[in-house]
């Protein structure tokens, strides 16, 4: 009953204050608008008409129908395409040499009920090759049939679409989550401590862990709302910004989205608890903001490092925040990293529980709560 009253109070405080709602939801809307505007300027170039040369290997009646579909899509973009039947090796060599823009390799069972796959070899460094890959992958992914589309990029750096999502988005998500958590937690914990209203709650018979949970649970929900707003703002505007189109988003299955959701869900209470810990230790919101900035820098560094550390061992699943960021990167890169993601979620929840325990101990400490 006491925990419920504490939770309801935090929600009441948030949902009855339009300023707080705006603070938490506005970043997502602003990000969406800004990225779209920037994307519109960046991609505002004259349409280029290409004359694609594409090798096709492993042809069959079904694959023929698909190449025809790709051909139509190319025509719609006022370009031309010339398909040449070849072996997979010849086709790949031609792409590497720059003699062909792409090579489509259909598996033997392509078009059968079991699925099958089509591999697209292209060179992301060349505009024509990259452009054809974009059209072909979008057409093939839009197909109702079940088969896998695998892109092979000969470019030394990874292709832009999923790479941006896999590399940049987890970093941005971590930062947005942090910002959302910071704005609500600082005010609710450090603010209440500074104003002396937390002491009034401590003077009641509510247990300290109830008071700690009564802060962390609702603040996590509110922060998750803010993080979701920012995440949607980025996810919906990034394709426009990098000019890949929404085909990239369609490339993820339900499992990918479920794992992403779980990872975000695990990182929010962890960051809220960490900021609440610092806020409880601080004497004022100003002091808490200064300490929180240090944590934010740590989170940023960890998130940036995650781009370079992803090829290392699985030890990262034990490192808070880093585990979620790397797992998100893997998931957004197309890998269904189930066990890494689930262990990361578990580890983050464990750290959250430890922090909640620590906060309840701090609430019992008169030096921390009432020290001058």
């Amino acid at each position: 009953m006491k925990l419920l009253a504490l939770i309801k109070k935090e929600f009441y405080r948030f949902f009855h204050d339009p300023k707080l709602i705006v603070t938490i939801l506005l970043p997502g809307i602003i990000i969406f608008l800004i990225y779209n505007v920037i994307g519109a300027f960046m991609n505002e170039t004259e349409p280029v008409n290409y004359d694609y040369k594409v090798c096709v290997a492993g042809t069959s009646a079904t694959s023929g129908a698909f190449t025809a579909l790709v051909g139509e899509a190319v025509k719609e973009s006022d370009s031309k395409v010339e398909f040449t039947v070849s072996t997979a090796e010849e086709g790949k060599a031609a792409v590497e040499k720059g003699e062909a823009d792409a090579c489509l390799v259909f598996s033997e069972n392509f078009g059968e009920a079991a699925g099958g796959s089509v591999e697209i070899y292209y060179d992301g460094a060349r505009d024509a090759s990259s452009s054809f890959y974009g059209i072909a992958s979008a057409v093939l992914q839009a197909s109702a049939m079940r088969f896998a589309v695998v892109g092979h990029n000969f470019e030394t750096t990874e292709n832009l679409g999923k790479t941006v999502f896999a590399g940049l988005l987890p970093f941005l998500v971590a930062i947005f989550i942090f910002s959302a958590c910071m704005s609500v937690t600082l005010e609710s914990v450090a603010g209440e401590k500074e104003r002396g209203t937390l002491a009034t709650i401590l003077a009641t018979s509510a247990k300290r862990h109830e008071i700690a949970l009564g802060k962390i649970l609702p603040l996590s929900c509110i922060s998750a709302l803010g993080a979701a707003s920012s995440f949607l703002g980025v996810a919906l505007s990034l394709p426009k910004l990098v000019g890949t189109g929404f085909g990239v988003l369609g490339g993820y299955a339900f499992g990918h989205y479920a794992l992403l959701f779980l990872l975000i869900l695990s990182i929010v209470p962890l960051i809220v608890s960490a900021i609440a810990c610092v806020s409880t230790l601080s004497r004022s919101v100003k002091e808490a903001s200064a300490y929180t900035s240090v944590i934010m820098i740590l989170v940023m560094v960890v998130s940036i490092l995650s781009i370079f550390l992803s090829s290392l061992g699985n030890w990262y699943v034990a490192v808070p925040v880093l585990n979620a960021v790397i797992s998100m990167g893997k998931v957004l890169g197309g890998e269904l990293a189930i066990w890494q993601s689930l262990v990361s979620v578990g580890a983050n929840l464990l750290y959250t529980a430890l922090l909640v325990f620590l906060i309840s101990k701090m609430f019992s400490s008169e030096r921390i709560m009432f020290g001058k």
Partner: protein
Amino acid sequence: MDDIFQDEIVRAEGLKKVFTLSRKQQKIEKTGLTRKVAVDGLSFSAYRGEIYGLLGPNGAGKTTTLRMLSTLIKPDGGDAYILGHSILKEPAMVRDCVGFLTSELKLEAFFTPDYLFDFFGAMHGVDKDTLASRKKELFSRFGIDRFAQVKVGDLSTGMKQKVSLVISIVHDPDVLIFDEPTNGLDVLTAKVVTDFLAELKGMGKSIILSTHIFSLVEKLCDRVGVIIDGKMAQEGSLQALCGEKSLEERFFEIYHSLKGEIV
């Protein structure tokens, strides 16, 4: 001893509190000492249906004593019992039978008196029906019903104090600990508060009141403890303590005998 004083509700036994002084605090206190004994072996008792006054100058240890009794801070020595519950061993039980009013405990400016009364009622585990009837009774008694839906931040000092008072007794505690309850109030609100304290006493509540206002002690308190430098300098009923003198005269006599000239 009168019958009314037979029930010992509050018993403090050698309460001691030592604070570590920061450099900044050392400067303010103009001392080189790193530790300050705020309360030094304080013992006293308060009985059912009496108002016990803690009288002393600023920094004497009154507020620290009350904070210990309300379990906000722990004593470094000694213990105190509220209705038999130790403040050291059963702080949650103590909080449920104590109502604490002090300027240190603030109410969130965003909320209305109506919301806060319900919230703190829930925090003390008061059931909804009891809470509703207490709210009706207390809000009407203090005229809070006129501004029950106004945010605390928009209320005057007197209104805020009334709301704080009402919320401190939301759970109908047997023991009331009031730290300077009339400080900063206009005469009208101060009278409402003092009248209510007398009313609570009549209801059999035990009240521990800290103040440095002599007239308030003379008007309300059955017994008085004079605290100087964290120690109990004198204690007793007003009659026993003052005899034919006024409380003010007697207080300065005690102070002078212990501290010398007043500077």
